């Protein structure tokens, strides 16, 4: 092991990570009087983890306000969460999350956040979710400015490489800036450094070579080093390692960091076929906001992790444009040729689908009566025959937002060990512990709720530990 220089700055709370959860923790801890130091792996220009790609957060509120069109109460929030996870959630922690999220927007505004008035958009979230003016990077810029004003020490381009523990107590952290390594001592540690979705070799442990076909939508810096070390050190794991929040993105997206502009919302308006030109799931099962998050996982399980959204001209203008143009042809066979699909197979899939479509009145805003009859898998809503050229196609890949494998925490954001004891001075917030809440599925804007609530909790609890 190369020798490390000791960095003996007097730190109460050392925070690993630079996104929403990390900054929320840093701000709370500092305001509680702690000396706070934050190490962010990314350079300053790319700081902020996956939060830089976010746009909104979901939180409990009893009344409408300038940004939210109506109330969103605990029962409804809890039901939504249960529905998307299919019950795979820790109820005690989820209820804690929901209650603690009450009027989160106000706290964020106090610390520099700005929201935009409720606007249109494809997910119809204006009642439940508040939208950051300018998006997540603007939010982070505001938080970093607040952090600077409060006197929080921030270091960029510094990766946490090794934990030094004394039993289950955090002692020091080895960090590297690419050149040398340093040892940072601190009284408490807050891990807010995300999941491991950017660590392809780790994903391969569960997915094999399929992981090569995944697109990582967010930061390339979420390699899960701290997560792995905590698990190795005896932290109790939560979340299925194969589960993640993943959506359908354009297959032409960059491997990392493509963010929002590569996602495709056109799937419900046509059919989705795999490499063999076969359909594999009900494209019209439910409203898109409730289903967009299942398609990443569905495509990840298809051969070669590729799929194609096939549409006709009726779909044009019904979905948000992506940054990539559609493949276009005057015939299904022509489209198949462009996509490298078997023309006869695609033609037969399309005509089978068209023949199964029942008459109905099309309405994309609700669960309409347009469905198929006698087709497996069925398309339950918005089924219109694909017959009007030009025909369009988008190639799809699973776009992973974040992984669910994480460390178990309690309501004080303390990391829980395998034997059920809580660590004394190690806290976790954000995607590294999101699996406590999300066993599966996703609810739009919940990643930021988890980061904010557990980030703030971790910051307060770490400061309290130091004070005691």
């Amino acid at each position: 092991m190369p020798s490390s220089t000791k960095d003996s700055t007097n730190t109460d709370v050392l925070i690993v990570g630079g996104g929403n959860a990390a900054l929320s923790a840093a701000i709370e801890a500092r305001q509680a009087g702690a000396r706070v130091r934050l190490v962010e792996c990314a350079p300053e220009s790319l700081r902020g983890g996956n939060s830089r790609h976010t746009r909104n957060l979901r939180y409990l509120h009893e009344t409408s306000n300038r940004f939210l069109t109506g109330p969103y109460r605990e029962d409804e929030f809890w039901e939504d969460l249960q529905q998307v996870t299919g019950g795979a959630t820790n109820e005690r922690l989820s209820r804690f999350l929901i209650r603690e999220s009450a009027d989160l927007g106000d706290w964020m505004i106090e610390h520099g956040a700005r929201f935009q008035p409720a606007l249109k958009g494809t997910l119809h979230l204006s009642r439940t979710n508040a939208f950051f003016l300018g998006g997540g990077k603007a939010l982070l810029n505001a938080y970093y400015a607040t952090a600077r004003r409060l006197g929080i020490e921030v270091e960029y381009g510094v990766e946490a490489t090794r934990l030094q523990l004394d039993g289950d107590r955090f002692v020091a952290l080895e960090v590297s800036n690419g050149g040398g390594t340093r040892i940072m001592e601190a009284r408490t540690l807050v891990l807010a450094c995300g999941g491991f979705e950017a660590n392809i070799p780790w994903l391969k442990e569960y997915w094999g070579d399929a992981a090569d076909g995944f697109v990582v939508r967010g930061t390339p810096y979420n390699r899960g080093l701290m997560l792995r070390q905590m698990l190795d050190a005896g932290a109790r794991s939560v979340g299925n390692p194969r589960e993640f929040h993943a959506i359908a993105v354009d297959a032409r997206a960059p491997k990392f960091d493509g963010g929002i502009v590569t996602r495709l919302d056109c799937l419900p308006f046509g059919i989705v076929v795999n490499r063999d030109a076969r359909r594999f799931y009900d494209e019209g099962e439910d409203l898109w906001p409730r289903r967009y998050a299942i398609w990443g996982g569905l495509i990840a399980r298809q051969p070669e992790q590729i799929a194609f959204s096939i549409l006709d001209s009726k779909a044009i203008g019904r979905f948000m444009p992506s940054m990539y143009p559609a493949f276009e042809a005057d015939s299904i066979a022509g489209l198949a040729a462009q996509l490298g699909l078997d023309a006869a197979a695609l033609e037969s899939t399309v005509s089978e689908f068209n023949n199964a479509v029942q008459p109905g009145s099309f309405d994309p805003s609700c669960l309409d009566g347009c469905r198929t009859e006698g087709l497996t898998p069925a398309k339950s809503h918005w089924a219109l025959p694909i017959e009007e050229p030009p025909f369009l196609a988008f190639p799809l890949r699973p776009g992973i937002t974040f992984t669910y494998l994480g460390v178990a925490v309690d309501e004080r954001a303390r990391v829980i060990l395998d034997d059920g004891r809580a660590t004394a001075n190690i806290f976790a917030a954000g995607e590294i512990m999101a699996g406590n809440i999300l066993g599966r599925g996703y609810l739009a804007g919940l990643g930021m709720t988890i980061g904010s609530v557990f980030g703030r909790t971790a910051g307060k609890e770490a400061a309290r530990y130091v004070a005691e």
Partner: protein
Amino acid sequence: MSPSRLSPGKLSPDEQSPGELPLNSLLVTEAARQMTICNACRYCEGYCPVFPAMELRTAFDKGDISYLANLCHDCQTCYHACQYAPPHEFAIDIPTVFAKLRVATYAEHSRPRALSRLLNKGRMAIALTCVVAPIAVVLLTLLLAGVTSSLSAHRGPGAFYEVISYPAMVGPAIATLLWSASVLALGFLRFWREIGGRPIQLLDLRAHLRTFAEALTLEHMKGGGEGCTYPDERFSTSRRTLHHLVAWGFGLDLASTTVAAFYENFLGRIAPFPIWSWPVVLGASGGFAMLIGCAGLLALKRRRDPDPSADPSRAMDVSFLILLFLISATGLLLLALRDSSAMGLLLAVHLGFVAGLFLTLPYGKFAHVVYRYAALLRNTIERSPDAR
């Protein structure tokens, strides 16, 4: 396309062959590439009207791009909020590409093009307006009025005209103004057509009123409420405030000149006017406002965040601000020293700067008044409920 070619990788609309395309069309291609990405994101839609206008479109031709570029007030806010800004591989930097396009707009639409290209680079404009013009006027004055008269004190009504005669002062001013106004009017019409406006829409009085109010209040320089990230990543309203000083100061000086012309032609009162007269009060307050505004904007320019690569319109902006500053400074100095023997030369220098301004109005930063107005008008009409 085979499945293997569908493996993750960047689509490269920006890799179209550079070939012999003129700068302008390369810029349009690059701006369209960036707008296509922005249109799939839309996080900035709360900042300014550019993004809502973008959302009304799915493809971007030259007219769309020119329109959006001239609608942009260069506040930098979207750049600092952008998760795709360099060093991200998508390299989104809307303020920079739009600033380049605005310079191109002025060059393309303010004819003759040769003059336009020459002057909108800034350095030539500075040389012409700040050096050549004042020297020429001073020399002419010395020649026509004689050295003695030029260098001695003149007092009382008509004092100015004893140095430079009324026709010699007003004639060239009106001629250059008429020239510049026609160039700008033709440019406006050409630009209006390019951005998809119809001639009949120019008669929409209500749209004009709303647009005029937006322009006068700088409604869109608020960056969604707290000002813009100018000159650096912090939100600030200083640029908007300073611009107000310059624009309103300019307006006050325009009012002063108009009142003075009215006094001379209809009331028979001849300049110089007393200190407590409308032309002097309006002119002096306008002059002070511009002096502070221009100095402030120049200072902001110096501190402007270097991140949005270079500042493509810096030369144009700076030369215009320097010229306005010099006009205000010499105007105020002339007022202070109008009873002294320095009056003659000061008057000549001041009028030299003014002549430089009048001559170059269509080719420099002033043109933004016209083209920005056209874009704002188009936006007002496009957003109005009965537009579509």
